[in-house]
């Protein structure tokens, strides 16, 4: 356990601070983060390419902080942040020759690494990649593999590294995990990773079929009345901290030009949904459509960022 290549903390281990206000039940209910956006409104995305000159392509992505977080930042009262906003940096190194020992490959060999910074989440992350980080890496690789025209670079490799500086929460911090709880925040992180990686690949001038962008939609049962008859509603670009209960969520990687989905990840129970009259879609169809709509929104930001990066490159040469 003792990692001799790093500076280790006290051998007995440390405990995260426990806030006294959390021990009293029902605190924070009044300051609970609430979604201020319409169900179809997306958060603003900040995306910039070319910040890391030593990499062949790079990008930095940040989600707009939620209303509650922005309020907490401008007028801090509590040390417990109400929610968090995704911040990540992505670098692309390559295409570069494969090492001599590697077997022949007629296509570009894509490797993706996703790593949370130790301070990215509410709970301190370890230095070694855990299973969720490896999982994200595999999902990201699938999403990008469908977009890159890999046969143009035989015998070469492409390294994509995503560093997550701040991740989304899985639920509101005051809630205890319940039965149908999952790592919903990871899905938002994946959507951000896909969009950022896509921008970085474009920044590295690697041929793609289209800019692939990520989008998240979720079925949310937010009613405080707690009537069992109430069906979950479809929301786009959900921040899990702002919702009482997410029933199911879906993340897609989508290429608008070809109307193609390269990656689809659906979690939870999507059997029930409250749709508009005359809408005959089933739950998971509505969910996927919603995620595609969110991805289309992210695509506009992505296209703008890539245009900026291209103009910068043209201005330089």
């Amino acid at each position, binding site marked *: 356990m003792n990692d001799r*290549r*790093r*500076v*280790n*903390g*006290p*051998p*007995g*281990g*440390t*405990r*995260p*601070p*426990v*806030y*006294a*206000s959390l*021990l009293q039940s029902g605190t924070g209910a009044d300051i609970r983060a609430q979604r201020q956006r319409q169900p179809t409104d997306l958060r603003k995305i900040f995306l910039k390419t070319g*910040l*890391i*000159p*030593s*990499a062949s392509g*790079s990008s930095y992505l940040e989600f707009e902080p939620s209303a509650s*977080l922005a309020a907490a930042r401008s007028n*801090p*009262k*509590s*040390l*417990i*942040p109400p929610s*968090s*906003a995704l*911040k990540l*940096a*992505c*670098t*692309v*190194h390559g295409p*570069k020759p494969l090492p001599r020992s590697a077997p022949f490959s007629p296509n570009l060999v894509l490797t993706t*690494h996703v*790593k949370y*910074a*130790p*301070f*990215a*989440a*509410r709970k*301190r992350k370890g*230095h070694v*990649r855990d299973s969720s980080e490896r999982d994200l890496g595999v999902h990201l690789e699938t999403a990008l593999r469908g977009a890159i025209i890999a046969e143009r670079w035989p015998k070469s490799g492409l*390294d*994509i*590294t995503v*560093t997550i*500086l*701040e991740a989304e929460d899985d639920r509101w911090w005051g809630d205890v995990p319940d039965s149908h709880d999952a790592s919903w925040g990871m899905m938002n992180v994946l959507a951000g990773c896909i969009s950022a990686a896509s921008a970085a690949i474009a920044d590295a001038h690697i041929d793609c079929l289209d800019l692939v962008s990520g989008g998240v939609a979720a079925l949310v049962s937010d009613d405080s009345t707690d009537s069992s008859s109430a069906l979950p509603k479809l929301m786009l670009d959900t921040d899990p901290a702002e919702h009482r209960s997410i029933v199911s969520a879906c993340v897609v990687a989508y290429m608008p030009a070809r109307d193609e989905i390269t990656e689809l990840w659906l979690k939870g129970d999507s059997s029930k949904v409250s749709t508009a009259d005359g809408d005959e879609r089933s739950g998971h169809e509505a969910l996927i459509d919603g995620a595609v709509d969110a991805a289309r929104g992210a695509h506009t930001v992505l296209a703008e960022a890539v245009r900026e990066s291209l103009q910068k490159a043209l201005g330089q040469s």
Partner: protein
Amino acid sequence: MASASTAATAAPNSLSLPPSQFARLQPHAYLLAHLSPPSSSNQPSIRANGRAPSQFRVTSANAGSLTHTNGSAVVRLGDTTAVCGVRAEILHTDDIASWSVSQSTNANKRRRIGETEKESETADEEDRAHIEDLNLLVPNISLSTGCAPGFIPSAPPSALAQSLSHQILSLLHTTRLVQAEDLRIWYQPPNLGPEEAQQHNDEEQMDLDAGANEEETKPAEIKAFWVLYIDIMLISLAGNPFDAAWASVLAALRDTKLPKAWWDVDNESILCSDDVNESQKLSLRGLPISSSFCVFEADAAAGWRAVVIPDAEEQKAQDSKHGSQKWILADPDGYEEGLVQERVHFVVDKEEGKTVIVKMEKHGGWTVDSEDLRQLVDISAQRMVAGLVVPVACLPALVTLSPRHTGTSSESHIDHEPLHQPMTELG
């Protein structure tokens, strides 16, 4: 060497290579041509990146932008970017294996030393012991973020990352930047009657015994410590990682707020208040600024390949020969770092108006003499005065400089690689 410089200036014309390609093919000649322009062209000596030899890159810092940290900072030093997040966690004294033992020996020591030496000495020693022996500061730097092509992501920390982490750790210890008092969580046991005290657990009883002869009232005891996990992610690496990392650590620590914490007897644990108004900033000792330099030699290979037995005369001859053929470059970027062997590294601080060298490191060669070193100290000190380091700008006032243990503040060591050299001394 004149031949090399003329070749360097002539080459772009005759071969008609664009400068960027020439820089890649002949990096040494390229930089040399920039630094020693032909005397006819009246150009000043300038580096390939457009900076004067002693010019640092523009530094900018942004503190407190990360949500899940107690303090955070992003520092950009030119194209090198470091993100530092400080997370505080609690170390209970129950979890420290040797706590009760070390406490009693410390108490004994205090009694013995207290007569002969000053009280502040022992307090200093205890502060040092708490921070260093209990590992209360845990800095780790991560380079596997894709910051530069050479580092494989998800690989274990490279030799560079390990050495940077330990340099930061030792600098945190020697500068005694963080005060141990800020990290202690005290508990004042209520003044119970003797028969009630009997019912309390043994631990408290022991502490009571240890402190019995000092005061009549129950002494306050340390129940826990804050441990600061200082994690630095180097997002972009374009030379001089240490200066960027250290600046980000400094800025993040200045931004760090620790919640008010107390020992809760009913829960037998430490509780914290989430009220911002009750939280406390760390009070740091001084503002040590690190500056790195590298020495670019006109004929890098000549002196190095030959095996030289250093003696004074030869050294002198070499000095006069090399006099005009070396340039000390401040804040080297990645391109320059690849071309030099000798590096000089300073950490300076201001103490009551005087410049104090906190750390000095020099390795890789012997062209820099004590006169040069003195000049470099001046340059480093000026940098501090000029407020080039933005952490100062983040907060309105400088931290008050508390008197420092002289033994640690003037500590310096000079490393020589790969040949051992007589130490150059600072007058």
